[in-house]
């Protein structure tokens, strides 16, 4: 199933999204990665954007100034796991509803998604040109002193995706199983695919 979700989004719509669903989002998406999370949660600087009902994107875009206006040339997701340290508190304190990233997130984020009705979705990594194609306008930028990749970029997007729901608002986690399976298979792969061939 694939659907377009408009931002800001309500808890009711978020609750309908299940792991494995494919969605596209339209509306305002704000980039936020390591330094922005840290400044807000560790240094205690108030966030200059109201994220209630909106989506954040774990991404550091390539932006250029063109005739006085910022243009997004490439934007795709960064490794979400680096934000696992912060994300549960970030969800609780901002009211953000959709977290867009790549590679999956852990149990603390899944618990926050369950408790505060949010979802974590995966945009295919490396697809920065595809991401920028869905950006209609750069609405603004905050905390640019953090550098272009780490600043908060406010993007108006149209049908940004595909986004695969990887953690839903019941706390189900799609990538957990893959990760756990991979870890548990190291010994058997070593035995069946390596040991007998190297003797």
């Amino acid at each position, binding site marked *: 199933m694939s659907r377009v979700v408009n931002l800001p989004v309500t808890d009711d719509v978020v609750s309908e999204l299940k792991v494995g669903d494919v969605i596209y989002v339209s509306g305002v998406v704000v980039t936020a990665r390591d330094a922005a999370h840290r400044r807000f949660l560790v240094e205690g600087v108030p966030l200059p954007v109201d994220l209630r009902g909106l989506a954040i994107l774990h991404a550091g875009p*390539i932006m250029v100034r063109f005739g006085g206006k910022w243009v997004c040339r490439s934007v795709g997701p960064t490794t979400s796991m680096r934000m696992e340290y912060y994300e549960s508190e970030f969800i609780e304190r901002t009211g953000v509803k959709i977290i867009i990233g790549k*590679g999956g997130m852990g149990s603390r984020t899944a618990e926050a998604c369950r408790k505060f009705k949010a979802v974590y979705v995966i945009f295919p990594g490396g697809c920065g040109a595809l991401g920028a194609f869905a950006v209609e306008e750069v609405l603004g930028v905050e905390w640019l002193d953090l550098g272009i990749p780490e600043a908060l970029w406010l993007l108006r997007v149209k049908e940004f995706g595909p986004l695969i729901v990887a953690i839903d608002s019941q706390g189900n986690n799609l990538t957990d199983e893959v*990760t756990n399976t991979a870890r548990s298979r190291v010994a058997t792969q070593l035995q069946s695919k390596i040991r007998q061939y190297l003797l």
Partner: protein
Amino acid sequence: MISRFISLVVVRLPDDVLSALASASKIESSPHVKLVYEAMFRNLEIAAKRNVPLCQDTGVLEFFVGLGEGFTYAGDLLKAIREAVVRATNDGFLRPNVVDPVTSRNTGDNTGLGHPWVEIEMLPGVNHADLRLYIAGGGSSRPGSARVLDPALGLEGVAEFVLNVVAEYGPPACPPLVVGVGLGPTVEIAALLSKKALLRTLGSRNPNPKIALLEERLAEAINGLGIGPQGLGGRTTALAVHVEYAGRHPATLAVGVSTACWALRKGWLRVFPDLSYQVLTHGGVVLE
């Protein structure tokens, strides 16, 4: 010329990577994985059409420069690399990615202490220079690991180390990956060789048959972990495993692992003594 070479490398994938991805995409059946491949190929089309970086993370730039003993423009070439990096950043082909580790300040133009990173090697008996560029993105560099093993652990110990690194750190590193493995006496030799292994043409094998077998078996074992494209499960986790090695010390067996994401951006520019050039990684390309 060099700034255009840089922009080529961040906009278009090399021929060998494109054909490996095309083959890997054909054997997948899960709807999510098919969707991911569709997005990847559409992304490549859009990047080429709009002439924009295919991935927003244009990494830190690592140049592996081979200087022929008869090539007389070595100094100019090294200066041109630095200027080209700044220009490609200003033109919107490179994201400023060099951060001072002490102040956490971004330098803004991809230069800084040690950047752009340049490794130089002399090429005896030739007159040309080889400029090989590797785009080291953050996500794909994150699994990088190196360690000195006891020789008693042997190649099996090496394989176990590699599998553990991929199982633990592979899923968010944008698989299907190319896994580079380096073996040698010390960590920095092993690590450097693991990066050079990533520059090898996909589909090539190490000339030592035993190491070639290790490459093949490691790729099978990594694919058996079931991580798949973007960590969503699937048949291909590693497009290829390349192993490069140097002699070890009697008491050490160092292993290094470097991973490249599916968007393995590398380029090989050969510059001749008359300053004509050839791009060896991207067929049919003229740097306008």
